[in-house]
């Protein structure tokens, strides 16, 4: 052993019939480093990590810890080896408190009686030490995604894990939360913990990682020192071609007002306050208006109100001059509103339906797809096959794939295909590139710009400042349920937006 590797995965091969998810992949993690694992959606990153975490058994290859070969048969083995993982989709019990979730599986007890007070002490200590702010008594279902992630991190720390795997941790975070997470990771590094950091985001790798291993389509592309590489080189390694990192678009030519929102106010009964307060703005045909803000400042609620998922407390919404304030969801959809929802699992897909059934989720009732109440199966298949091809949605069995089994990126592509292909007047896109790789983001951004250029009105809700700056023609910043400023992306800066988003300026 020339070098001090804490974990080595040597020549790992994991096959599923018809596909080699991992093909002879080697990954060596040094003690006290942040090691990024980069790859497109479906490149085999999560499979590799699942092998390390004991969820899959590899066909070939060995895993070594501190130079000694080990067997990881299940997550308990992984835990015993000090390996902890924050999954992309959190594994939390929604109706349990933060503390209960952290101790779940390793509950301190005396004769079978829970000893929560010591657990609480340890959790509070850990959260202070690493700056992981949580309320131990809050229920998971009541806290933000960012806080849920901190709970997942605390779970690993509580188990004294030394090797921390983060599976796309920033996909769901706000810019500020991402900065915080980076800081937390640096803190871990100082403590001598080793971090495996799965991500698509080159900025984050450049900011926090020491080395980076790149996978492409299940194959090992190489490991590079971050100090000696560039974003462009990394993306080339990952995608296999040069990627346009910035969006190319012509200036907008806004036309008539499509969406007119006047004084929309929404009330949150759980928090006993207005989640959205007197919001008014317009979106014109042929422009992309972005609603920017830190998560939890009323964007989600506003979109629920706009799309009809929730009722407004007051205000008025007009689309193409027609009052749709109290129209049904279906009616809004008929009137030309498309909605790429924030939560693709909750709203976007019926996960246990096949892909083709999901492709017609918004259209199954149209004459094209049904005849006297009978679904025209052949038309559905035809349509779904076309969308899959046109929008490059990759899945195991094409139209017949169960949506649940698809990768997150391809699920998202399917939703985007479905919503854009409806030829809407207004496209409401909430976090459309959440959790996607640069190749897919490039593609989706181009689609959105293309929609704009076709004269559609686009309302983009995004937490990612890069996306906000790149894509939008106008930026509205939302803070605590109110719009606190309107900006032109050409003349504003990320710093200025950040100040408004944080409520430091109004």
């Amino acid at each position, binding site marked *: 052993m020339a070098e001090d590797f804490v974990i080595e995965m040597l020549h790992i091969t994991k096959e*599923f019939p018809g596909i080699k998810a991992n093909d002879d992949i080697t990954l060596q993690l040094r003690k006290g480093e942040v090691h990024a694992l980069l790859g497109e959606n479906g490149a085999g990153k999560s*499979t590799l990590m699942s092998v390390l975490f004991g969820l899959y058994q590899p066909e070939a290859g060995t895993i070594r810890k501190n130079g000694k070969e080990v067997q990881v048969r299940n997550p308990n083995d992984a835990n015993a080896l000090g390996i902890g993982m924050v999954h992309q989709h959190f594994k939390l019990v929604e109706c349990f408190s933060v503390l209960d979730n952290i101790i779940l599986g390793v509950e301190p007890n005396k004769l079978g009686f829970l000893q929560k007070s010591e657990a609480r002490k340890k959790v509070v200590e850990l959260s202070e030490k690493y700056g992981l702010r949580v309320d131990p008594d809050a229920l998971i279902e009541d806290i933000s995604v960012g806080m849920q992630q901190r709970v997942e991190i605390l779970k690993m720390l509580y188990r004294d894990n030394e090797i921390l795997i983060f599976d796309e941790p920033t996909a769901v975070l706000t810019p500020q939360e991402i900065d915080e997470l980076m800081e937390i990771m640096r803190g871990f590094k100082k403590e001598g913990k080793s971090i495996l950091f799965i991500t698509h985001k080159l900025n984050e790798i450049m900011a926090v990682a020491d080395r980076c291993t790149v996978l492409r389509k299940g194959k090992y592309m190489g490991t590079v020192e971050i100090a000696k590489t560039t974003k462009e080189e990394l993306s080339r390694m990952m995608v296999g071609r040069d990627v346009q990192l910035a969006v190319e678009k012509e200036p907008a030519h806004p036309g008539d007002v499509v969406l007119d929102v006047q004084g929309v106010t929404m009330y949150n009964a759980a928090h006993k306050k207005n989640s959205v307060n007197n919001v008014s703005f317009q979106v014109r045909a042929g422009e992309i208006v972005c609603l920017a803000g830190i998560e939890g400042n009323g964007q989600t609620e506003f979109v629920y109100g706009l799309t009809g998922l929730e009722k407004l407390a007051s205000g008025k919404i007009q689309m193409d001059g027609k009052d749709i304030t109290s129209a049904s969801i279906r009616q809004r959809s008929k009137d030309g509103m498309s909605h790429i929802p924030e939560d693709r699992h909750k709203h976007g897909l019926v996960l246990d339906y096949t892909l083709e059934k999901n492709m017609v989720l918004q259209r199954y009732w149209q004459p094209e797809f049904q005849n006297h109440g009978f679904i025209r199966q052949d038309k559905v298949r035809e349509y779904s096959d076309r969308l899959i091809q046109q929008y490059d949605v990759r899945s195991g069995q094409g139209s017949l794939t169960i949506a649940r089994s698809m990768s997150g990126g391809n699920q998202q592509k399917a939703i985007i295909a479905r919503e854009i292909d409806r030829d809407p007047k207004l496209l409401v896109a909430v976090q459309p590139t959440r959790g996607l790789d640069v190749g897919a983001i490039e593609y989706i951004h181009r689609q959105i710009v293309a929609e704009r250029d076709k004269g559609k009105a686009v309302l983009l809700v995004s937490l990612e400042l890069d996306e906000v700056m790149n894509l939008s023609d106008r930026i509205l910043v939302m803070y605590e349920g109110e719009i606190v400023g309107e900006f032109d992306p050409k003349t504003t800066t990320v710093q200025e937006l950040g100040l408004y988003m944080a409520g430091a300026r109004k």
Partner: protein
Amino acid sequence: MNKKKLSHTGMRSSLTSVLAALLCILIGLVCGYLVLLAINPAHAWSDGFVRILKGGFYDAPYGIGKMLANGAPLVMTGLSVAFAFKTGLFNIGAAGQYTLGAFGALYCAIVLHLPWYVGLLAATIMGGLWGAIPGIFKAYLNINEVITSIMFNWIGLYLVNEIIYGNGMGVMYDSRNTRTWNLRRLEGAEGTMIPDFGLNKVFQTNSTTIAIFLAVIVAVLIWVILEKTTFGYELKAVGLNKNAARYAGINEKKNIILSMMIAGALAGFGAGLFYLSGVSEWNPLNSTSLPAMGFNGISVALLASSNPIATIFSAIFISHITVGGSFLSTKYYPTEVADLISGIIIYLCAFSMLFRGKIHGLLFGGKRADKTNVNAEPAPAAQKKEGK
């Protein structure tokens, strides 16, 4: 290419379901045999086990006729539960809906002397109403349908008993037989019974009517609704993901209520088939037990993996075993043993869901660990593995 794959995957999953069901039946039969052995080892085989296994065929053709007569309503209660399952609801209230259906059918026949098809319609409507109530509670107040439908089982039972009995003076009550009037002998009730088109002659019974065929038709109809129509698409979408259904503009409240209503209607229709075939009369004094038909519907649905077509077969099988139990020799076995044995088998049938995953793994390979959907990403490969 896609079509080929479809039939392949589809066939595999149906094959798995069928094998799981058969395995459950086998285990149930073995357990039943062990009980017979424990009670009276000398006669367990020929006087006990074989009779149960032969079911209606032990005393053919009468037994077969009886099996079919009892099977028809069981298909319906099985369908009722299966339909609710498919739409994400657990209809444990089939017994109550069945009770109300029985009332509707008998009222039309005994009091109003209406033709059988009107009686069936009334049974369907009554069952549907009784099913809709838990649906309304679920849709608007988010009260779990299991709780409400259990309570409505008992409310329905006591209500119906009270009305029929009417302190011994009820118009539908034949105090001499302590049951509702026998339709065959009731004056003016001609035509209130479901026609048999000679089936009774064939089976030498008096209650084998075309009910079983009606049940089969309804089962096929339900399959078509669930698999082929936009209505079924909506119902299942609501069942699988209420939020996504809502997002897609589906009125999820309406669909929950409709779903429970249809489930109830199916159970009610089953009661109509049973009582208008004159298999038995309603006994309002037996007020402590709900009709077993309702709960057996749950077993039927589980055994059939909630597939409407498979429901026909699983219901007939359970009916077969139950009839077989009734032929147990009373010389060697107390009469309760019959219920016990068929109960054990039916109970084990409910386990088929458990075996399905295991059988699939055994047949089509795959280490246990690899089937866990650990996150969205590796899963496509796993899916391929199962589906290849």
